[in-house]
């Protein structure tokens, strides 16, 4: 190979790399530096470098509550997605191919529809005069409307709806790699359906569950539209707080510090999880 051939891959990837560096890496570095500026209500963004914004986030109860809510919500959404996504992916893999393609459109299709549209549907369903409350009252299960709009529960339900297709997709992918012969072997050795699921199928789809959880957790912690519309002003999460700091109170340095903190936590969780999966399943990847 000639030397010019050796530099070819770099030239080929240069345009993408330049775009990514200029419009992702550089802006992120600028956000990091912005988060270190002081801010004053009357004079705006000041000079010099300070860790005040981070100190505020660390010591202020107000921010503790927001971070705890955001990541508590993300964890709950992830767990619910595993609990309903796992059986759903399993059913999908057992359907006849005609039913399967219909079911795939229903289960995965919503991914292609804007989050705003899906969240609007939940707002209509969950409101005090919403369809769910009216229906429950009509059949006499409840007398008073249950508050679901602007609540934690309502937001979790809507987030699960938005994110569960990612979980189904990840588990479905690992189910497709499953060799049906292993199930048949277990069956011929006298294992019942439950044992086959527990001892044969489930251990092999755990990598799919983990990668699905990673996606759902990260997307849920950084979700904006759903908590903003269903949760509203009263149920702030980190992304909606960043929005308010930037476009509402115009305290950009504080907003930037919140963004950096969110990024660091999400990245740390993702990388830790990745490490764990690679370590635990290294024999699978080899």
């Amino acid at each position: 190979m000639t030397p010019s051939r050796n530099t070819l891959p770099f030239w080929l990837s240069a345009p993408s790399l330049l775009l990514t560096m200029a419009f992702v890496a550089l802006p992120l570095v600028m956000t990091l530096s912005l988060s270190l500026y002081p801010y004053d209500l009357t004079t705006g963004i000041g000079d010099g470098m300070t860790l005040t914004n981070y100190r505020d986030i660390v010591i202020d109860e107000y921010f503790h509550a927001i971070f705890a809510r955001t990541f508590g919500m993300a964890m709950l959404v992830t767990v619910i997605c595993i609990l309903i996504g796992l059986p759903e992916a399993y059913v999908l893999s057992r359907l006849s191919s005609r039913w399967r393609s219909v079911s795939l459109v229903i289960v995965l299709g919503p991914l292609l529809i804007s989050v705003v549209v899906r969240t609007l549907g939940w707002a209509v369903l969950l409101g005090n005069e919403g369809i769910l409350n009216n229906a429950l009252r009509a059949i006499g299960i409840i007398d008073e409307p249950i508050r679901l709009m602007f609540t934690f529960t309502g937001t979790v339900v809507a987030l699960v709806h938005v994110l569960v297709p990612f979980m189904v997709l990840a588990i479905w992918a690992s189910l497709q790699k499953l060799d049906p012969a292993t199930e048949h072997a277990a069956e011929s050795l006298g294992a019942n359906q439950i044992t086959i699921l527990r001892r044969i199928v489930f251990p092999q789809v755990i990598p799919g569950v983990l990668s699905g959880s990673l996606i759902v957790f990260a997307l849920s912690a950084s979700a904006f539209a759903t908590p903003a519309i269903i949760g509203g002003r009263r149920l702030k999460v980190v992304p909606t707080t960043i929005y308010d700091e930037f476009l509402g109170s115009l305290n950009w340095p504080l907003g930037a510090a919140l963004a950096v903190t969110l990024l660091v936590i999400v990245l740390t969780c993702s990388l830790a999880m990745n490490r764990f999966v690679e370590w635990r399943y290294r024999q699978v990847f080899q």
Partner: protein
Amino acid sequence: MTRTPRALLVFHISFACFMLAPLVVVALVSMTDKGYVALPFDGASLRWYRAILHAPDFIDAFWRSIGLAATAATIATLVAIPAGIAIAWHRFPGRDVVLGLLLSPLMVPHVVLGISLLRFLTQIGASSTLWGLAVAHTVIVLPYVLRLIIAGATGFDRSLAQAGYSLGASAWTVFLRIELPLILPGVAGGWLIAFINSFDELTMSVFVASATTETLPVKMYNHIAHTIDPLVASISTVLIVMTLILMVILDRFYGLDRILAGKSK
């Protein structure tokens, strides 16, 4: 294979209802003849569909989003093709680093990208311009295109290119006549998933778009945050129907799960 237990089928049907409920509800409330969102309603009408025609700002936002998504998807595909080829077909020092860097935007929450790009574009004097928004969309859809192109180019028989060279074709001819046609399915799938992701993108655009460059999701979000009326429901229904048609076409040519695998992170 043994039969699927009844309990699982019941679960499957409940799951499908859960997935469909909000979409069906949006379609239902859009057909009210009242001026507000309520179910059940007495009279059905299409007045809120006619109302879309008298909402030029939504129609403008729709075409802006279409143009933006097409531009972002095209630029992203054009730069992702060479990068994907380099990563799939060449072993070079730093290959993993290059791949990691190019895929890294997937790991960054869009709200963080949104504020970063808002400040960056303001600093370089490109805030509230359409091209600033287009570049912002390009960099966030680039990783999706790149992944599909790499996946398409990896399962590719390199001896075909060797055959081309041995018959005297130039590198450029080999690329245009042999390699490009073979990776075209991956390229087309990548463009499409980029288009859809850009068209639906809200969280970053909410920061980067200004009043004059509002995309359709941003316009709808701002409307819903203020008031929920049958107009956004009818617009949403139009979007749902359009997506449904797209899905049927996609399923014919690709298989829906294959396309959607590219959408996940």
